[in-house]
């Protein structure tokens, strides 16, 4: 029994990280029907960006946790700007009825990022120095001990989901997102600058991506070729949860995390495969996902 609760808790915490991988993808697809096949690679890029920032800050800031905060403060706004620039400069040109251009361009970006990182950092796995944060643990009521970092990631994932839901439902920007995704032509007729709105959507998605990358690097190691695996996790979370809602994506991510944990416990080689199987099962039995929001 204890073991079952443990698996569940570990799975939920893992799922929190997957949610951070997936929310950005859900956002971009929701607003502009764009499938970002480089999602995972951008996450890895975020991790290496944090690593580079820490290398630069290292001699100036000896305390690792302070360095982390500073690196984050540098990375996240940079990600916002990069996402905006990428969308306006490159991705806006791929939008339209045909899914092929955006797929090929993001796929091309995936190759470019992987190889650029390989050139700059070599294929060795790296991780981010956390000053002990990644091994600290905390005991929850009920006597369950969990890692501090995974718990923080989980809380962040829930907060991000709630934040995105609030953004979409209650703000003018969120209204613009929904309007432009419903009917771009009429939204422009209202005076909306669709190109700018798309840019902001990707900018926000990239902040999530950068945070996810940094946390992944803190939690475990990253290497330039990790992108595709992370993309698949993000994608599976979105499909299992159901498209059209952020809470659905979170739910899908948590379920994926739990499924993988169950697989890992049965046999270390099976964790990811179990996740794939559950994904396929959902696709066959309930293709709209578990919590779809009909639009």
């Amino acid at each position, binding site marked *: 029994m204890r073991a079952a609760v443990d698996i569940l808790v570990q799975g939920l915490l893992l799922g929190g990280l997957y949610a951070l991988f997936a929310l950005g993808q859900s956002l971009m697809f929701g607003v502009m029907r764009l499938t970002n096949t480089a999602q995972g690679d951008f996450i890895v890029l975020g991790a290496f960006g944090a690593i580079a920032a820490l290398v630069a800050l290292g001699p100036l800031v000896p305390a690792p946790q302070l360095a982390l905060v500073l690196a984050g403060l540098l990375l996240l706004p940079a990600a916002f700007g990069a996402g905006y620039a990428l969308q306006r400069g490159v991705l806006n040109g791929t939008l339209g009825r045909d899914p092929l251009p955006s797929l090929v361009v993001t796929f091309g970006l995936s190759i470019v990022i992987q190889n650029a990182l390989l050139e700059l950092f070599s294929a060795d796995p790296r991780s981010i120095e956390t000053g002990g944060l990644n091994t600290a643990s905390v005991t929850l009521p009920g006597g369950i001990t969990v890692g501090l970092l995974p718990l923080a990631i989980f809380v962040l994932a829930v907060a991000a989901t709630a934040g995105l839901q609030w953004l979409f439902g209650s703000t003018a920007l969120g*209204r613009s997102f*929904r*309007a432009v*995704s419903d009917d771009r032509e009429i*939204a*422009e*007729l209202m*005076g*909306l600058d669709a190109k700018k709105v798309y840019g902001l959507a990707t900018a926000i998605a990239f902040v999530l991506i950068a945070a996810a990358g940094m946390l992944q690097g803190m939690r475990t190691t990253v290497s330039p070729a990790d992108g595709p695996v992370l993309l698949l996790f993000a994608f599976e979370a979105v499909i299992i949860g159901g498209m059209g809602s952020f809470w659905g994506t979170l739910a899908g991510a948590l379920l994926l995390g739990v499924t993988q944990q169950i697989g890992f416990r049965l046999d270390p080689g099976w964790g990811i495969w179990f996740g794939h199987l559950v994904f396929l099962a959902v696709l066959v039995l309930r293709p709209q996902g578990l919590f779809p929001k009909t*639009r």
Partner: protein
Amino acid sequence: MTLLATHALSARYGDAQALFGIDFRLEPGEVVAIIGANGAGKSTFMKALTGLVRAPREQVTFEDEPIGGLAPAEIVRRGIALVPEGRRLFPSLSVEENLRMGATAKRAGPWQLERIYALFPVLREKRAQPSTALSGGQQQMVAIGRALMGNPKVLLCDELSLGLAPVVIHEIYAAVPALCAEGMTLVVVEQDVALAQRVSRRVYCFQEGRVALEGMSAALTREQISQAYFGV
């Protein structure tokens, strides 16, 4: 000063030429109707006025300034608003959110939410509902209200009566005199010829992308109109 005009406007819609040299003018405070069979080019004309269809620069002028080729967002900022054919409300947005979207261009003027609700009281009760939950006539009211929220100088109405019952059409068009009294200028595209003649001061009849007839609504005869309508 002529408020809105086109000069030998020629435009393509997709691969085909849809408009062939349309001359059109709109004076402040007028209600002008455009009639014509399906495919005559009426909707393409409206799209050309609002920038959804590209027009050569000098061929469309607003307050004597050329606006052809400008982006729709820029045109609406200058004061032209469209109530699109088929309403085209945002299904993910509530009634009130749809109305608020109309104010994106932030033009100054008397129209805001309270006024729209005063004009169409039924919308006030349904403000929080998704726009898709409303009846056809109510959706048309939302579409008109949304366009009004932009405080336009010119309101273009594309087939307000489409798919609506006569009683509802009557209710919608009852709002027109109130708008005119405020000084709004309207262009009304209609399939129903008699209705178009009744609500407007002048009428244009389009036929295969050309102006086949233009005149004072009250003065044109059935014969003149049917000849122009069908090109016989």
